[in-house]
């Protein structure tokens, strides 16, 4: 009897396996009009001016459009909702001619009044929305609010003055000072134009502030009814599970090829890769460099390269002696074996950086840039010239628990740099800390002497690289260089593009002579897709519409 019962388990087991295998085929099918894309996390809210993280901006980029856009795969500004624009002689007033016949997804008309409504909304954000934690990009590009609360900057500090409507197709934005980075910044997803009717109806700015001071939006604009003019609309959002976009059949431009895009948050790199291998997703971003070989080796998967728009650098805190001496900084530059690090740890996706700007950005200097090829003897010579006794003991900081596009494996970079510096007259002591908030806190508060850090550009303008880092004093670099500050300010204010380019090239060279840091890499982040996914165009600033994506045979 017992034996019969035991034997019964065998066919039951086989039946279970057969059922699993059969149902596998049913579950594997992906609708041919749907793309499932793996993201690193869930969006915060679908309202561009109120977010700064990439995973919120990804769906926002499909739903909203700005006055200007970027040429596919580049940082070149092109018309979007505005067909043309021109600056006044003073450079203060920018007049935009708007595209006719465009409707918001709720059927209301896009016009100059809508443009001004949006700009004035951002300028008039109430107190809780004025924080950098919420409206980072308005603060960075324009700064200043009409009714500042607490220590937030007011109208006197703001780049934005006003927006005026002239008919339905012309809007003039007036600035408080000339700024050429303004146009490039308008391509940011954060400045997409939303439907005024929807903003009002769904109370986009409504919210409460809890006892900890944290803002909680109570309106449903950013969670259920984000209405723009873009090629996709929000269909549904199950928090933590998936966000579903559906094609806007009334889109003014080239209609999307796929009916539906599903964004699926998968935090773990390995899990994203496996989901791609099983076909549960058809593409994902932020590919771990360690997985690139596996993906390239697969007959059904492929890698797409995002153009390099970042810089990895070894930062120097000049408040910590003897790094206030330029000879010592030059010695450091000669002591960093940058080629070995880039060739060894970037899986062929890095270029050795000879300056802070990537070559995509206006202001990249093609000649006259000081070169610091690895030369330990030269480094020792410079240290002796500086009157420093060898070896010079230095504290080198690097982060853990992080992989950034410009720094996939910080520990390897740090150890390789340390080995090179030890031959160049330095004696390196390493300090490691988890990326955030510990490591960033140490670096940004000026505790770190030498440190690994980097930057990925927000928009295609040199001010976003050079002015942000070297345009004013900060604890991270610990220097005061009024002539460099003035040069960068002058470059940012210059509205003539040729003169602007020349000024930024000059600034690039000055930065490499002054050496507040030593840049070492510009790297190309990777995206992974199934081979039959076509039409995806990687952008240096990750502005990548899904509307051009389709399935090939």
């Amino acid at each position, binding site marked *: 009897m017992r034996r019969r019962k035991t034997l019964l388990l065998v066919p039951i087991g086989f039946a279970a396996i057969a059922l699993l295998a059969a149902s596998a085929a049913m579950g594997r099918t992906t609708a041919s009009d749907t793309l499932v894309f793996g993201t690193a996390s869930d969006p915060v809210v679908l309202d561009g001016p109120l977010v*700064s993280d990439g995973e919120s901006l990804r769906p926002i980029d499909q739903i909203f459009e700005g006055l200007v856009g970027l040429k596919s795969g580049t940082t070149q500004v092109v018309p979007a909702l505005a067909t043309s624009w021109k600056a006044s002689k003073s450079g203060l007033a920018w007049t935009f001619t708007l595209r006719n016949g465009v409707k918001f997804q709720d059927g209301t008309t896009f016009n100059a009044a809508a443009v001004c409504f949006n700009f004035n909304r951002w300028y008039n954000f109430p107190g809780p929305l004025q924080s*950098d934690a919420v409206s980072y990009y308005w603060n960075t590009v324009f700064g200043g609010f009409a009714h500042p609360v607490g220590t937030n900057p007011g109208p006197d500090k703001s780049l934005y003055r006003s927006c005026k409507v002239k008919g339905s197709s012309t809007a003039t934005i007036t600035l408080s000072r000339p700024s050429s980075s303004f146009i490039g910044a308008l391509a940011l997803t954060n400045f997409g134009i939303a439907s005024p009717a929807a903003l009002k109806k769904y109370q986009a700015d409504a919210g409460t502030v809890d006892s900890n001071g944290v803002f909680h939006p109570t309106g449903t604009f950013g969670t259920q009814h984000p209405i723009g003019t873009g090629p996709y609309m929000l269909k549904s959002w199950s928090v933590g599970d998936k966000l579903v976009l559906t094609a806007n059949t009334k889109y003014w431009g080239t209609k999307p090829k796929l009916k539906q895009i599903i964004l699926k948050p998968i935090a773990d790199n390995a899990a994203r890769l496996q989901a791609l291998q099983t076909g549960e997703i058809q593409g994902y971003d932020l590919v771990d460099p360690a997985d690139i070989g596996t993906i390239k080796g697969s007959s059904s998967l492929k890698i797409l390269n995002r153009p390099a728009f970042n810089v990895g650098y070894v930062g120097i805190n000049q408040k910590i002696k003897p790094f206030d001496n330029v000879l010592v900084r030059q010695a450091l530059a000669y002591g960093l074996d940058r080629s070995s690090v880039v060739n060894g740890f970037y899986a062929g996706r890095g270029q050795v950086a000879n300056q802070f700007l990537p070559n995509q950005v206006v202001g990249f200097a093609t000649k006259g840039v000081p070169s610091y090829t690895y030369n330990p003897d030269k480094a020792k010579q410079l240290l002796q010239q500086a009157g420093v006794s060898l070896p010079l003991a230095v504290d080198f900081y690097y982060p853990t628990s992080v992989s950034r596009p410009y720094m996939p494996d910080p520990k390897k970079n740090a150890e390789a740099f340390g080995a090179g510096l030890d031959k160049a007259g330095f004696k390196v002591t390493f300090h490691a800390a988890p990326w*955030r908030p510990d490591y960033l806190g140490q670096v940004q508060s000026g505790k770190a002497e030498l440190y690994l850090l980097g930057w990925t550009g927000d928009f295609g303008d040199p001010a976003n690289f050079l002015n942000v880092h070297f345009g004013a004093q900060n604890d991270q670099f610990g220097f005061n260089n009024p002539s460099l500050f003035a040069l960068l300010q002058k470059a940012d204010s210059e509205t003539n593009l040729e003169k602007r380019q020349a000024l930024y090239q000059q600034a690039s060279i000055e930065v490499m002579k002054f050496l507040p840091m030593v840049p070492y890499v510009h790297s190309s982040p990777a995206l992974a897709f199934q081979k039959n996914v076509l039409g995806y165009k990687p952008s240096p600033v990750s502005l990548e519409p899904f509307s051009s994506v389709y399935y090939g045979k």
Partner: protein
Amino acid sequence: MLRFVVRRLLLLVPILLGLSILVFGWIRLLPGSPAQALLGERATPATIAEIRHQYKLDRPIYEQYWGYLQTIGKFDFGVSISSRRTVAYEFEHRFPATVELAVAAMIFAIGLGIPLGFLAAKRYGGVFDNLSLVGSLLGISIPIFFLGLILKWVFAVKLGWLPSIGRESVLSESKHPTNFYVLDAIIAGDPGALWDVLKHLLLPAIALGSIPLAVVARITRAAVLDVLNEDYVRTARAKGMTPVVVDSRHVLRNALLPVSTIIGLQTGLLLSGAVLTETIFAWPGIGTWLKDAIFNRDYPVLQGGILFVAIVFVLVNLLVDISYAIINPRIRVS
């Protein structure tokens, strides 16, 4: 019994008060602030100071704690700094995922562990017993993340039999009124949806249940071995009771007391969130939520989330204590 339950529930108050002080103090001792978490490289010292001021982190700690207690008293657990959703909303949406996974893992662990442990004890010293000991050791020793990756690689990537991520097929349009996907599929009367959800549960439940399975099997084996040697078992056999009756009514029932304690503790642990399993299988539970909150210095989530988990843990253990009375009438009478 009612007095016992009420007394245990009242004990929750000092437990939660003490825990709130510990958690509140601990997370504020951690270096860094939410500013770096929110803005990364883009955070400037001015931004950091402004955000600290906005979130009242520059106030004296007793003032911050008093404000926190006042809001807890109104059952307001605050708003997540990262997601800007209320802590209660996030917990309400994530906890069912954790419960579902924990229950599935424990069903796997108990369903296999008790029979395995029982059979190992009955065949003490034999091949089956030795194999089960080795299996238990392996189950406890193999890291969950490694087991999870192997299971996914074999059954999802290579064989394609099971999905590798999530709670249901991405293309599913099922509604989830309760957020318990299995229950929602049953309520909807949708066998296809139910099968889809169960398939998604299988691999994470096996990965997560591997350690409880090993523990339950070992404890069951030890408990059954103890009971098998008792006089009343020998007496029951001598009185002519069938082996099935002896095993079920006398052996297993008495052996289950220590086993139920372990089951309660293991369940409580699983309900506090299985970070590794949730990460590998992209399972949107509270484990990854709390882990991210630590890295993001998301104080409201940590303060509220840990309190919720503590309440769950205490309630689960209360249920375990009540189960003693059901299993053992002597405890019920006393």
